[in-house]
């Protein structure tokens, strides 16, 4: 019996004007956004490669470039905004990336027109979730209003079967649209010469599609619940749209706003004072060895000690910066906690994690830089005072940034996936209960 209902419902959906409008829009946006973002990625990758080739530092000032993330085509996240270059020497462990230009000028403004970006994640978060509402708001309410619910249930048809059949059909249509959009995006990416997807990328894209499906399921179940609980379809639609505006637009904004404004961060001045205080005990010594170094004393106790002390200052300052970075992470965590019940915020976090365009990946990159500085870079600098001939021969050590294993991304997104699953289950359970108790006359 469920099979019959399932088939009927799917046919109804596919024939409906709202599905055709929504589906057309989805595919059009998926295609346009992917084409634009792929070209943009290609351009950024070209710049990155050219920079690596043409803008090299020397043994003292080493320039490290961050490649654009390939999956930023699908989920822009912070990839464009966080910068491409770190310039390191023993006087400084960078705490932020800059643009190709210097720290002062190259820091890219968030977006140059004052708005955000359109990508696959946006399509799912905003457009498809709206489409889901339009497909599901009348699932029960419409049949009740037109009287067909009474007729359907007059047959030997358990209520649970009817609801499951409807839910399964609706979800099939929704997830089918999602898959179609994802396929269009995937095809465009594969055809484009600038894109070179690895196996891990493919797994990540699949994870992204899976979490998108989960997110849309939450909205579907919510719509089913409202459609069951409310008498008239028009009212169900209104209620759902208000919920959508709240969950997608208002709630995540309030979360970030609260974290932004009610989380105290140390001021620049406080940080500067802290840095100064940390190095104060060595100030005298530094002055002495600095003189020896400037006079050309290259012995380990002279120039060597000078570089060592400067490096120590960099480390101490870096500790203060890291502490600040931890405060920023805590601030971001607070925003995430406040928005923990917003499916849109949960989805964004998970999607950025899979696409490696979130703040987590950026932090990993900065850790790699710190590690590189503390080991390979400083070893090379000290070599100059131990064995000058060996230093002259030595090449600039290669910078390595190990890719995040996909399993780690899964582990990191487990909380988001769990809450989304719970929300979907709770909404479905509530919808079933409401439907079983519903007065169908």
């Amino acid at each position, binding site marked *: 019996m469920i099979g019959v209902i399932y088939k009927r419902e799917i046919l109804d959906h596919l024939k409906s004007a*709202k599905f055709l*409008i*929504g589906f057309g*829009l989805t595919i059009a946006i998926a295609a346009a*956004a992917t084409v*634009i*973002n792929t*070209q*943009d990625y290609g*351009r950024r990758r070209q*710049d990155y490669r*050219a*920079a690596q080739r043409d*803008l090299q530092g020397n043994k003292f000032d080493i320039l490290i470039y961050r490649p654009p993330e390939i999956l930023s085509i699908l989920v822009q996240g912070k990839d464009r*905004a966080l910068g491409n270059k770190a310039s390191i020497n023993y006087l400084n462990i960078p705490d*932020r990336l800059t*643009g*190709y*230009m210097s720290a*002062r*000028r*190259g820091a*890219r*403004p*968030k*977006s*140059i*027109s*004052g*708005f*955000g*970006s*359109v990508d696959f994640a*946006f399509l799912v978060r905003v457009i498809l979730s*709206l489409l889901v509402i*339009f497909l599901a708001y009348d699932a029960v309410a419409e049949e009740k209003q037109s009287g067909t619910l009474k007729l359907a249930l007059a047959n030997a048809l358990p209520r649970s079967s009817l609801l499951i059949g409807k839910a399964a059909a609706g979800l099939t249509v929704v997830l089918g649209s999602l898959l179609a959009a994802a396929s269009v995006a995937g095809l465009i990416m594969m055809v484009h010469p600038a894109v070179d997807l690895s196996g891990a990328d493919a797994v990540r894209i699949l994870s992204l599609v899976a979490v998108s499906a989960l997110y849309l399921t939450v909205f579907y179940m919510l719509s089913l619940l409202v459609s069951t609980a409310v008498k008239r379809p*028009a009212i169900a639609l*209104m209620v759902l*749209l*208000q919920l959508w*505006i*709240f969950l997608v*637009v*208002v709630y*995540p*904004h309030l979360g*970030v*706003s609260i*974290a*932004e404004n009610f989380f105290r*961060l140390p001021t*620049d001045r406080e940080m500067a004072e802290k840095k100064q205080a940390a190095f104060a005990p060595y100030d005298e010594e530094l002055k002495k060895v600095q003189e020896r170094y400037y006079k050309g004393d290259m012995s380990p106790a002279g120039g060597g000690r000078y570089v060592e002390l400067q490096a120590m200052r960099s480390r101490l300052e870096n500790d203060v910066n890291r502490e600040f*970075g931890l405060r*920023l*992470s805590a*601030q*971001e965590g607070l925003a995430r906690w406040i928005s923990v019940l917003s499916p849109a*915020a949960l989805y*964004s976090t998970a999607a950025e994690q899979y696409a490696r365009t979130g*703040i987590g990946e950026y932090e990993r990159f900065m850790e790699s830089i710190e590690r590189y500085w503390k080991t390979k870079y400083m070893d090379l600098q000290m070599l100059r005072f131990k064995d000058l001939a060996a230093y002259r021969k030595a090449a600039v050590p290669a910078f390595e940034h190990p890719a995040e294993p996909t399993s780690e991304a899964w582990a990191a997104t487990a909380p988001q996936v769990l809450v989304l699953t719970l929300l979907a289950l709770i909404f479905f359970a509530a919808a079933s209960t409401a439907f079983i108790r519903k007065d169908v006359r």
Partner: protein
Amino acid sequence: MKTIIYREIKDHIQSLQFVVLLLFAVVLFAANGIVFARKFQTENAAYSATASRFQPDTRFVYLTWQPNPILFLAEGGDLDRPTSYYLYSMGYFNASAPRPRDYKLPDIPKLDWSFIIKTVFSLYVVLLGYAAVCGEKEQGTLRLVLSNPVGRVRFLAAKYAAILAVALIPLTVGCVVSLGILGVSLPQILTWGLASRVLALLALSAAYLSLFAFLSLLVSSVMRRSSLALLALLAAWVFFAVLIPDTSGILAEKLAKVQSDYDAAKSIGPMVEKEVWAKIARLQTRIDKGELKTEETVKVEAGKAFQEGQEKVRFFERSYDDSVAARAGLARSLARISPVALFQYAAEDLAGSGVGREAALREDLQAYARQFDAYVLKKNGKLVGQSNWSFSTQVKLGGKAIQVESPRTEAYRGDMSDFPRFVERAPRLGEGVKAAAGDIAGLLLWNIVLAVAAFGAFLKTDVR
């Protein structure tokens, strides 16, 4: 006509949409008041602290300017721009620290009035208006109403007036809430100047929301079913409010024929370095030939070479800044296809924030830079051009190594009580309105076009 308007308003006020919109308006505008009052207090405290620490110095000036107290109307990206610059002689500026500091938070628009109105209110106008015609048709009441001696034009005008009036009620309430909170925490900002800006912004908002009302009526007259009309309207909303503005940035980067961040970095670094060292190499040859004999002449010649290098750096950085500005300008022009962007940019102009404010500030800073240069010239007797780069190397003169470096401005030790202070011009409303005139005209044009289309469609509609 009055009866219809009155009835419509009553119906709307009892609807769920209206109640929720009122709720959202109160919550969002209250949040706006609290957030921006806090922000202004922090920024202002920081500003006063730096202003009190000011010490005249001919090497560089640390420049800050007063935070804008009415940023809550339309923030326009101002909170992410640098709040201070170091100014060196020959008009060289360096931003003091990159912003935003809390860069780990998700990028979301600031909760200013323009965001609340352009996003939440425009959506609700759509929700209030989508069923105006086709909803009545579905219920069969449209036929009944029009069988009375009510003209179609009057009927639609009444609907329009009711939608707009109902949307403006929560807007006014919200604005009062926000102003109330701001007034309690920052009583000094409640001035007539602010009142006129608020009124101007409200008028702008009315024009903006009005075009969504016309759009809703148009779609509602064309479509048969109200749920489809709503879907089409939401699609249009997403198109105008999100798709066009959000893709304009990326498109501008593609279309703009100006150098990219990377191109600029590439032209500046290696090129300048090569040129400078080539000049130093020529200097060495001249020394070897015996043209330069004393240490002093060598240093003067090297200084000249380095100065030319600095001049090049400054030129490249200026042209990079110009290309960033050009790209932003192109992105904004592209975004202006959408009325949402027209509203946003006009609101920024009225609030004295955004790109207009940045340009005005740059003018003020440049005017001050000239003053500073004149002062340094008076005190030090010469001007030295600097940049982020500094050059130093050794040349050999008769077997002796001489350290040559790019020259720097010296610190003047004498009396500096007449040191010029930086004062920025306060943004004037008149200038803002003038700057916003094009965008406002665009919004009005949208209104006219959509109004004609809506009335045209409704007059031809089959009401059965």
